[in-house]
């Protein structure tokens, strides 16, 4: 029992990352009709926003410390962050410690700008082109983006820990009345899950309850009519691309303490998130979220020891197997609309 609860927790957590990326993909697909293979790269860029932000915070001047030696026996050069000079050492340390959550504030504008530039500079020329062209040009862009990141940050993973307050884990079992110590779950992953739900909720609320959102939704359903009403839907769709980029970026920022990021993390997530989108149903936002969580949970269950022992290799293929079964039984995915992307 406790094992099952534990794996559901795990799945929700992993699934919320899938859901966030798939949500952005679907937003772009639904509004602009573009299949964006660079979306994984946006997730990766978000993670590197967090790294960049923490490096900015730790920008340092070099002080030579004669009392210590480095590996060659020369006097040790010690880095002292400028931020200590500005805010004092203790406040500076707090800021550096909280760099991941603070990076959200940094990442939102950066990612929106990246998204808008991407849409205006490249994607907009591809609205009328075949989906295969869109896939390829964004795939090319993804390669370029990750190579640029690799050039500046290297190929190795870069650790970016969560604030100390969130290090450690929460005894979930004790909280729900089971034996203590049976279900413990890291604080930061709980934060990640809540954050993801909050973000998904705000995207839905934004689309549901604001005039802007209503226009965008109307445009998703019937672009021409909305344009006939004299509304500049293009501009709004550009902004939606920025929002989708920001969603992927924030998913990346908050993910850094879970997995230290490296330049190809976007590609690692790309295939899975496409599977998620398709399983959820192309163009369906709730479908993307539901499929993300569902596949996350499935993946977690498949990684249980008892399951692997019964079906060797199932953990390698479960997501794809699920995708195949769902697509064969529900032709348009879980919540897909008819006629989307079938030709």
């Amino acid at each position: 029992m406790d094992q099952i609860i534990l794996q559901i927790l795990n799945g929700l957590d992993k699934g919320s990352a899938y859901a966030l990326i798939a949500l952005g993909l679907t937003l772009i697909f639904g509004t602009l009709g573009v299949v964006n293979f660079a979306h994984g790269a946006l997730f990766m860029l978000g993670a590197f926003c967090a790294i960049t932000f923490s490096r900015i915070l730790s920008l340092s001047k070099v002080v030579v410390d004669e009392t210590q030696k480095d590996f060659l026996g020369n006097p040790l050069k010690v880095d002292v962050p400028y931020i200590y000079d500005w805010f004092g050492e203790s406040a500076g340390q707090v800021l550096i410690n909280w760099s991941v959550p603070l990076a959200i504030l940094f990442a939102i504008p950066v990612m929106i700008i990246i998204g808008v530039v991407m849409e205006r500079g490249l994607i907009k020329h591809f609205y009328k082109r075949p989906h295969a062209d869109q896939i390829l040009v964004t795939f090319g862009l993804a390669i370029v983006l990750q190579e640029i990141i690799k050039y500046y940050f290297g190929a190795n993973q870069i650790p970016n820990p969560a604030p100390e307050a969130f290090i450690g884990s929460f005894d979930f079992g004790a909280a729900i009345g089971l034996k203590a110590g049976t279900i413990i779950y890291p604080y930061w992953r709980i934060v990640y899950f809540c954050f993801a739900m909050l973000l998904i909720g705000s995207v839905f609320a934004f689309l549901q309850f604001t005039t802007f959102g209503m226009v965008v939704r109307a445009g998703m359903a019937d672009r021409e009519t909305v344009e006939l009403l004299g509304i500049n839907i293009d501009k709004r769709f550009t902004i939606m691309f920025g929002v989708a980029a920001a969603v992927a970026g924030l998913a990346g920022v908050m993910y850094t303490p879970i997995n230290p990021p490296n330049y190809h993390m976007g590609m690692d997530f790309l295939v899975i998130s496409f599977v998620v989108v398709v399983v959820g149903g192309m163009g369906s936002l709730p479908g993307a979220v539901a499929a993300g969580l569902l596949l996350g949970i499935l993946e977690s269950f498949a990684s249980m020891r008892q399951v692997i022992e019964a079906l060797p290799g199932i953990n390698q293929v479960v997501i794809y197997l699920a995708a195949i079964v769902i697509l064969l039984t529900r032709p348009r995915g879980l919540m897909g609309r008819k006629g989307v992307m079938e030709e």
Partner: protein
Amino acid sequence: MTKTKLTRRSVMQTGAVAGAGLAVPTILTAGSHSGFANAPTGSSVTLGFNVPQSGPYADEGADELRAYKLAVEHLNGEGDGGMLQTFSSKALDGTGILGKKVEYVTGDTQTKPDAARASARSMIEKDGAIMITGGSSSGVAVAVQALCQEAGIIFMAGLTHSNDTTGKDKKANGFRHFFNSYMTGAALAPVLADRYGSDRKAYHLTADYNWGYTTEEAVRNSTEALGWETVAAVKTPLSQTDFSSYVAPVLNSGADVLVLNHYGGNMVNSLTSAVEFGLRAAQANGKNFEIVVPLYSRLMAKGAGKNVAGIFGTTGWHWSLENTAGSRYAGTNAFVKSFGEKYGFPPSQAAHTCYCQTLLYADAVQRGGSFNPCSVVEALEGFEFDGMGNGPTLYRAEDHQCIKDVLVVRGKENPANDFDLLELVDVTPAEAVTFDPAIFGGELGSCNPGA
């Protein structure tokens, strides 16, 4: 007018026809005269450095390449000579190899066997490389080693830790300086039993591919021999990025030690998850819960950040070795000095093994008096040397595996800087990790000179 010749093997040599008249076709004869592939004919000799320049191990590959460039400098008599001063064999004199200036070509393995073979073949066929070296995974090493055997070229493996490289997939033309999974198990188990006691229950998470299998087997066998019990061993997909669903059940499994048979990004991510799930701080069976990472590298430790603190593993070499463990490991400081002065930071173990391999190859050619692979094989088989940072070392004839001390290290609690991440716990002497070369099967075959 055109005369042609059918060569056995594709022999292609730059510089073979210098000075020939434009109108007169010339027969290429390099191969047939010397009797081996890619025999150098001019005043220089070309080595092929085949390292991952793209993909997840690109940083490790970059470090290997730095070491190779340094080795070439030293062989050509530039720089401070590095380990040439401490190396027990004095055959090399800084005038290249057999008087020929050392040049090199580079290729990108992409850490994929296919791509690695393509780039190795290009270096052999196009650039006339006489020796191929490098790589940072066993899949690549095994694949390229087989290719070199077929082409009649010497292969000096870079970082490869699987038993297979000099075990079931060993080849006469291939040599490995780095240690293997078996030696990791043999070195690690006694230290673990000593520190954590001999009644431990271990839970293995194993990367689902060849290296993972041999490492799990080695660590299991040697820990079980000392009284440990293996509660479970779960395979994890190589492409996995989030290990939470594998790590989470560990605490309730009855185990009190988690062994992560992972390398590279896999290890960084699984270790991060394990620490996140509180395993470092937990208690099980009345003992402190422990995590073990059989194969450490400094770059991985850097990727995992603070999470490596206090975690045991083995490593082939560490830049601080001579300072902490004494002059048995002479050569270390000489290498660190030339590397550090050139690049500004200390070398990784991958860089060390690649540097040594280049020098060992050059030395074997020099001692044997020929670039012929069979002469090199003869010179390296059973070769005993010292002064290359690992203490007295034997290149074993039976399986072309270097037998040397293995270091057991631990992640530092409070690293002073970015490089000072591992501290030496113990050195397991070569005798303790020596094994019977027959246990892994495979056949060495005979040396292949190519042409």
